[in-house]
């Protein structure tokens, strides 16, 4: 049972983690990003679309479409993030409203497009893109370790991808000049500006990266949860990722901790239900576990949180 909890927990936690890292990029640069939900959905849509097209043209038996779907998802997420950029960075719109709009738009746009594309190109009436089931593998040697070996058992390839991308993201954020500029823009854009940094450019790149990272998370969920893309992708995991990054105090490592907590809360809940032989209707109740944990954490940890100082503030150069 412990094995299942660990395996399922990681499968759920890691995609959320990479979405949260995306959120951190945007918010550390000073742009509130409630759009994670919409960005991951839109990314999953473009990724799934590319996957379906490639499967049709290349046939089965190759892993290329699988990896290409992640590239496509990331690009789609980045492209869609430009909506948030245009509203918030270019026109100084309210970032909360923009985020919500981006989410709602993603939901309706992707379900509309999925139906149209299915009808017009594949001659089907469906609101889904059916994906190939992802392969899973055991890491040699490591998977043999008692108990903890489960973390290396029936691993999705995207889990490795997420870890690698997250390490790169951490390096960019804390070791490169760009990362330094990004964090400065989130604390005091006036200081960044005075140091000759183009605040709008830095924020544009940050939000675009945020879109790409969120999209990788969305694509992963499309493979792991349902092996298809449908409007069911909008289950609110994007919002949960935002909660995770807040508990993680806008830092990448603690955010991983928060995501793992959510993941294990969910998977152990499910395991308990199965163990007790409760009817599957209780599954819905268990799905709320991460949210209940969120609420409890909110009560206890909110006061220790320090958000980026300029988060959500509209940056107007002329204002002194």
């Amino acid at each position, binding site marked *: 049972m412990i094995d299942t909890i660990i395996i399922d927990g990681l499968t759920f936690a890691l995609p959320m983690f990479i979405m949260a890292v995306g959120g951190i990029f945007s918010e550390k640069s000073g742009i509130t990003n409630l759009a994670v939900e919409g960005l991951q959905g839109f990314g999953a849509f473009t990724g799934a679309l590319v996957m379906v097209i490639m499967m049709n043209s290349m046939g089965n038996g190759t892993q290329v479409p699988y990896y290409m779907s992640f590239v496509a998802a990331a690009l789609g997420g980045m492209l869609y993030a430009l909506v948030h950029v245009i509203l918030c960075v270019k026109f100084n719109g309210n970032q909360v409203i923009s985020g919500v709009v981006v989410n709602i738009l993603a939901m309706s746009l992707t379900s509309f497009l999925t139906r149209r594309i299915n009808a017009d190109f594949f001659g089907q009436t469906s609101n889904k893109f059916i994906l190939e089931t992802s392969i899973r593998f055991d890491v040699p040697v490591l998977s043999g370790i008692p108990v903890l070996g489960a973390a290396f058992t029936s691993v999705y390839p995207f889990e490795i991808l997420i870890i690698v991308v997250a390490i790169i993201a951490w*390096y960019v954020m804390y*070791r*490169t*000049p760009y990362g*330094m*500029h990004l*964090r*400065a823009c989130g*604390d*005091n854009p*006036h*200081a*960044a*500006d*005075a*140091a*000759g*940094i183009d605040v709008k450019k830095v924020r544009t790149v940050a939000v675009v990266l945020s879109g790409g990272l969120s999209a990788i998370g969305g694509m992963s969920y499309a493979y792991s949860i349902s092996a298809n893309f449908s409007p069911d992708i909008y289950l609110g995991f994007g919002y949960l990722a935002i909660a995770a990054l807040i508990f993680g105090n806008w830092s990448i490592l603690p955010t991983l901790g928060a995501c793992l907590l959510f993941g294990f809360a969910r998977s152990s809940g499910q395991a308990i239900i199965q163990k007790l032989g409760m009817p599957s209707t209780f599954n819905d109740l268990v799905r709320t576990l991460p949210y209940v944990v969120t609420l409890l954490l909110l009560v206890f940890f909110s006061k220790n949180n320090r958000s980026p*100082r300029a988060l959500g503030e509209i940056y107007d150069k002329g204002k*002194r």
Partner: protein
Amino acid sequence: MEGSEYIVEMKHITKRFPRIVANNDVSLSIKKGEIYALLGENGAGKSTIMSVLFGMYEPDEGEIYIRGEKVNITSPRQATKLGIGMVHQHFKLVSNYTVAENIILGSEPQNKLCGIIPHVDIKKANADIAALSEQYGLKVDPTSVISEVNVSTQQRVEILKMLYRDAEILIFDEPTAVLTPQEIEYLLEIIRGLRANGKTVIIITHKLEEIKAIADRCAILNHGRLIDVKDVKETSTSEMARLMVGREVSFTVDKTEAQPGGTVLKVENLTVCNELGLEAVKDVSFEIRSGEIFALAGVSGNGQNELADAIAGIKPVKKGRVLLNSRDITGMTIRERIEDGMAYIPEDRQKVGLVMGYSLKDNLAIKNYYNARFSNHKIIKEEAFEEHGDRLINAYDIRSSEGNKTIVRAMSGGNQQKAMIAREIDMNGKLIIFMQPTRGLDVGAISNVHKSIIAERDRGAAVLLISLELDEVMNCADTIGVIFDGRINKIAKASELSVNEVGEYMMGVSATGVSAKGGDAE
């Protein structure tokens, strides 16, 4: 223009804002290696002309030459490339970055991890900054975090930021406004050191003593126009003050002997805690009579804020009592205190004193808007607000671009202060608390505030004047109290204390002859 002796030449600069001409045909020529001061009242256009030089504003007319070459400066970034640096009045620092990270921001030294992956070389940055700080005598620890160092250190970081970028022309916008006297001394020393290193320094200020102490030449601005450029050595401070204000200014305050009446404010064994829950005011007792100015002297942060806030009802009292006209007001609300005749001019006019987004007329009526005079059955009488506003604007010479409808945020600091003082004095209070009333004001405005304080006393009000400026205390007070570490360690008639004695009490030295050396400048 090759070999011009001037490093900066600004010719016929005019900068207009909606409704105001901030600079009107101003021409400045600054020599390499000199300390050049820009003197003027609040709103004279000093900061604007320097913002033009630093590329923050583009002038509507005029030309700029740097090292003899005509330039068009459109951004701070470009100004930096031309070797111009500026320390703004409000520092531009990233609060959660270290000193070194702030200094290198935007021009980070880089290295390659394993020869390929680029990263910021923070070790090199720390070493470079330590060396730079050594060279110019600017003490900083490169690894400490900005939010944990004091204002004076933050200012040194700003200076190092300019030096790190090899700036040759250094602009300081009112650099001493936020510093203690010891820190000012240190800063002036640093500025002299910069000149010795061949830098050109431009300093914006309205403090005449500082100009006298360090500047070589001084340009005087008034209402956006250049009045004169003077050689500092050959010009007296009173001459500079006259040019700056446009009229004679007296540095001493004329006042008659106090005619104190009955006790108005009585503070008994008052103990008040600060935000951290520590006792900031400890067992303080004193009283003020009507027609008396009680000045509380002390170094910043010795409990003055907490004491004033507790008397005004903003902070809760831990122990002790406050009596106004023999009535215990310790537990009363702020409104009850106001109705009982207490007026308060807080130190932080932007946060506590005024609502920055409100119009001037609304701010002037904010303490009594609910009276029948201003509202009728809970409906506000707009005309009464306007009439009241206009009356105070005329009586106290509050200048603004749109009269009583001006949004307070858009007014200059000096006029905001005037507005607040006008509102409080107009209430005809029995007790008026002035907390740092002349902070950030120019000499002309200061002398007006002092006149109002004395006029209030002569009207019969009890005045509590809390000031960090020793001159102000000595000039205005009838009675002086000195606060140190939350306790009042001396109360005496103003005539019985010398400046030096008050200074010693301020450093916590009782009059046993032990002299305070150095002190805790932190």
